[in-house]
């Protein structure tokens, strides 16, 4: 086993003159221990020759140590370095020597007969090819073998080894043996791995935080939060159910999906406030379960009693509420995995952090949206006000022009200032009455019955209602309403002076009907007086008759004033415009 030790001077590859692997001394150092993780300092102090060590260092000027053989020194150094040592026959691939530490590196006891085949089988399958290649290259280049690979211990655990070695060559230049050391680097690898993981986590968190802070688009915000939280929690899929308000202030739930196509969820109803979801939707706490099927809150509710049929399998479950600064629950982040025990406490903390960031971002987006809609509404109101003021101005100016018209014409037909005053006042009052009627309907129009009632009521009293309105009520537009109030006023004034209303026994009847067959429909009105003094046609056309005839002016309207002796009959046939 110790044949021609080659560790005498590894650095230049020359052959060690003496045996290089002093097995006995290693055992005395390590005893039956297998574990590679031990207190090296403690071991070192218990090792032989410790007392002599100081002597070595002080007497080291000439390089000799009277208390230690070279084997002892090497063995001690290897042990102190926790280095396993090995030697292999290059041609037969037979292990010529393996130290106890070396065997321990492979999870084997000191008495285990470690074979090269055992070694090959124990190397992690993914690392075998790399190992073979590294050995071949070292031999071919006469260089140093330096490789890190994983090996699998008999108990199934995976460990990392760093192995260094060199070969010796015969006079033909062929490699004969190779020897070297091994070091268990599992801890370092784990540290590296967790550092990488930590770095990746920080990068994602940083990216997510930046994105959340910079974005005001709700849809993108929640998708970003869902994606990041799904990735960092190690979930197979994650979702974010969030509550939003529509334009009418109605609350509804939207969701984003990460790690699975949206169609996978499309056919399922929104999660409800069941026992399981309640802590999330009420914001009382995080739910993290290694196996949600074993949770007492799971599967209690109709109609599904657990997951709806066809739902992606969920065993590991994590749900984190997303809560606004105001305390309002904005929604919840939900994660699933088909395997048990997938969500660690660390994952829970990370997701809780993302949920907090998402809450702030959603608050900001909502505030921004609210401010936007507030501004838009103000602009709308301002526009409406401007429009309203313009419309008001228009209406006032029109009304002034109407009053101007009434004044001009009343003046034209008045014989005295007194007659003008009375006529003008009555007409302005009639106009005001028309405006009252229209104001009641928000200027939308008026009912014909109301128009006639308003004009005629002053001419009758409780004992003697002097008019009859048998027609079925009909709505007329605002412009027609004003004209009809004025026209009825003129007719009634005339009747009070010269017609049916001039005598107590006189009466009048105003009837109407609508011809719906016509396009546009036509309104046919008949004003008929009876019981008044004998009628004479007036010598000239006054304001009233001009106004009434003017009604006919629109689209072939027709007005007839029949001054029959028995009483005036006025027929008005006009188009019934809804808008007029």
């Amino acid at each position, binding site marked *: 086993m110790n044949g021609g030790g080659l560790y005498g001077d590894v650095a230049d590859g020359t052959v060690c003159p003496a045996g290089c692997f002093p097995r006995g001394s290693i055992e005395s150092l390590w005893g039956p221990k297998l574990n590679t993780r031990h207190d090296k300092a403690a071991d070192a102090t218990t090792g032989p020759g410790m007392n002599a060590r100081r002597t070595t260092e002080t007497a080291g000027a000439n390089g000799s140590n009277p208390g230690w053989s070279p084997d002892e020194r090497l063995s001690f150094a290897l042990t102190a370095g926790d280095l396993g040592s090995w030697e292999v026959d290059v041609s037969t691939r037979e292990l010529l020597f393996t130290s106890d530490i070396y065997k321990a590196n492979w999870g084997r006891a000191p008495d285990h007969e470690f074979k090269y085949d055992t070694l090959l089988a124990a190397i992690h399958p993914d690392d075998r090819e790399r190992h073979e290649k590294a050995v071949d290259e070292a031999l071919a280049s006469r260089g140093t073998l330096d490789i890190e690979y994983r090996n699998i211990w008999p108990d199934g655990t995976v460990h990392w080894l760093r192995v260094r070695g060199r070969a010796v060559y015969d006079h033909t230049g062929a490699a004969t043996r190779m020897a070297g050391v091994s070091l268990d680097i599992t801890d370092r690898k784990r540290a590296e791995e967790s550092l990488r993981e930590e770095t990746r986590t920080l990068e994602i968190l940083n990216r997510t935080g930046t994105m959340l802070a910079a974005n005001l688009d709700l849809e993108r915000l929640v998708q970003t939060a869902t994606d990041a939280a799904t990735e960092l929690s190690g979930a197979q899929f994650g979702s974010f159910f969030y509550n939003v308000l529509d334009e009418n202030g109605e609350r509804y739930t939207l969701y984003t999906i990460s790690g699975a196509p949206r169609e996978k969820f499309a056919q399922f109803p929104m999660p409800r406030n069941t026992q399981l979801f309640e802590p999330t939707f009420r914001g009382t706490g995080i739910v993290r379960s290694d196996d949600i099927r074993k949770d007492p809150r799971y599967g209690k509710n109709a109609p599904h009693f657990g997951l709806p049929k066809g739902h992606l399998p969920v065993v590991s479950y994590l749900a984190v509420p997303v809560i606004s600064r105001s305390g309002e629950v904005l929604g919840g982040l939900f994660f699933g995995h088909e395997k048990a025990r997938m969500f660690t406490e660390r994952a829970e903390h990370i997701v809780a952090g993302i949920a907090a960031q998402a809450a702030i971002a959603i608050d900001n987006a909502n505030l921004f949206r609210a401010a936007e809609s507030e501004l838009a509404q103000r602009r709308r109101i301002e526009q409406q006000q401007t429009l309203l003021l313009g419309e008001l101005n228009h209406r006032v100016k029109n009304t002034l022009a109407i009053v101007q018209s009434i004044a001009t014409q009343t003046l034209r037909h008045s014989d005295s200032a007194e007659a003008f005053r009375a006529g003008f006042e009555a007409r302005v009052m009639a106009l005001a009455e028309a405006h009252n009627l229209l104001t009641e309907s928000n200027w939308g129009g008026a009912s014909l019955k109301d128009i006639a009632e308003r004009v005629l009521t002053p001419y009758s009293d409780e004992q003697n209602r002097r008019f009859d309105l048998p027609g079925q009520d009909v709505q007329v537009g605002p412009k027609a309403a004003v004209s009809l109030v004025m026209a009825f006023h003129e007719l009634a004034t005339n009747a009070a002076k010269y017609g049916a209303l001039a005598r107590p026994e006189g009466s009048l009847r105003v009837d109407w009907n609508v011809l719906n067959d016509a396009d546009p429909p036509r309104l046919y009105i008949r004003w008929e007086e009876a019981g008044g003094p004998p009628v004479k046609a007036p010598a000239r056309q006054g304001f009233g008759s*001009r106004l009434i005839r003017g009604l006919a002016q629109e689209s072939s309207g027709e007005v007839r004033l029949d001054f029959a002796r028995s009483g005036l009959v006025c027929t008005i046939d006009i188009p019934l415009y809804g808008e007029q």
Partner: protein
Amino acid sequence: MSSAGEPTSSRRVFVVEDEIMIRMLLEDMLADLGYGVAASAGGLSEAIALARNSDFDLAILDVNLNGDAVYPVADLLMERGVPFVFSTGYGERGLPEPYRDRPTLQKPFQLANLEHILTSIGR
């Protein structure tokens, strides 16, 4: 159609105004100024028909006819080369670009102003 019964030798005006009493006022004022009323209309379709077919020298167009803008009538008159003036209660700012430079009669009307505008466009 209404007629103020003016002599045919006077300049004849086409009046478009949807408010009967304002139409009556304009007809009277025009008569006082020695103009005849060739035709008058209160609705857009009627106004368009009359703008195409009747004979007149000037036109007064109320901008808003029961909610319809009178501009199609204005366009017809521009095509025919007939001078016209808008009448409005909205103020001058209410007119869209192609008509902004047109003279405008503000309601209520001033006889002297009406005379001035009609004289200036009728030249």
